[in-house]
């Protein structure tokens, strides 16, 4: 296999220092982007959505769990499926301990279109404790553009799609401030960001790597964490 050039520690240090200057530029650029993001306008949510949760019906306001901000991940889990999306499952594996988000007045919840019984069974299988709600009897998923009007049993996860919405509470008023999906969600996951620091990278075929590096298609190499062989 093709490898990076092998150099002395001093030569490595010089090359690393040169890259560090670019990394610091990227960090400052990311800080500036986050500052702009905090100045985005927001949209009030006036519809009363009712979700099914472990403790019964819950409104969108109740998903805030008495905190100021809500991170809501739209998890692909079609009502005709018995297991949720493998990519969304890998993402949820990467969400950190929620105590740290709660300390910043921020709750985290998952919402899927599958009925609650299927969600609960799959959550148990995955060993997750994140609050997870069903929008099965609600327009929520269709209104937020992550579900087709009617579930499509012939396509992956009945045609569901994924993303992260951010909501802000002001008194009793709920606003959506942000939405991101695809590469925007990958930026939030430590599997992707850790692999970006390794010489082989994510090993996905869209990456600009030296010739001969192992690469496979994105979205196809990952599995649910209990489905990998030999790890």
């Amino acid at each position, binding site marked *: 296999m093709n490898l*990076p050039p092998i150099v002395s520690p001093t030569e490595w240090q010089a090359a690393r220092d040169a890259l560090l200057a670019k990394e610091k530029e990227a960090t400052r650029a990311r800080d500036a982007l986050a500052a702009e993001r905090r100045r985005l306008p927001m949209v009030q949510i006036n519809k009363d959505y009712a979700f099914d949760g472990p403790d019964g019906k819950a409104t969108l306001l109740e998903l805030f769990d008495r905190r100021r901000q809500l991170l809501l991940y739209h998890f692909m889990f079609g009502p005709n499926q018995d297991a949720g999306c493998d990519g969304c499952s890998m993402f949820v594996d990467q969400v950190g301990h929620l105590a740290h988000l709660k300390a910043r007045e921020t709750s985290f919840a998952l919402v899927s279109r599958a009925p609650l019984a299927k969600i609960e069974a799959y959550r148990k299988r995955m060993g997750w404790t994140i609050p997870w709600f069903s929008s099965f009897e609600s327009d929520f998923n269709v209104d937020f553009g992550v579900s087709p009007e009617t579930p499509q049993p012939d396509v992956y996860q009945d045609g569901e799609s994924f993303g992260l919405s951010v909501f802000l509470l002001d008194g009793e008023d709920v606003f959506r401030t942000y939405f991101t999906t695809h590469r925007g969600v990958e930026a939030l996951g430590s599997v992707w960001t850790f692999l970006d620091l390794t010489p082989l990278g994510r090993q996905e075929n869209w990456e600009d790597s030296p010739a001969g590096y192992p690469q496979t298609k994105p979205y196809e190499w990952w599995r649910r964490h209990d489905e990998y062989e030999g790890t």
Partner: protein
Amino acid sequence: MSKVVGTRAAWLAVSRAPLENLQAYRRRMGWSFPWFSAAGSDFNLDFAVFTEEGRLTGTGFNFGTPKHAAEIVLRRDELHGLSAFALEDEVVYHTYSCYDRGTDVLSSTWQVLDRTPKRRGDDPDGWPPRHDEYE
């Protein structure tokens, strides 16, 4: 998480504390990743990535650039960082290290808070408590 990275890379932690301290703390935190002790080894000092001057004086960190660099004495203080290594034909290569802000894209807590209107909070220098220490 470590299991997923495990298909494309191994992930583990190394600390200077004796192994029994690490194991007790790992149980308290409920973590399952492999954790090794570098007690009695030069590993931690060598991989702090010193400048030549730092190597001689036992100072320096993050390539000598953080605002508190002058106060850091690596023979006394522990600090954090992430290193990447590659293995080929039984030979180990050090390919990458990062420290301080360099590690913050790796934390999903920081990254999702950056997507909220209030961001990380009011105290940029404050470190979060352990997950079982919040009131």
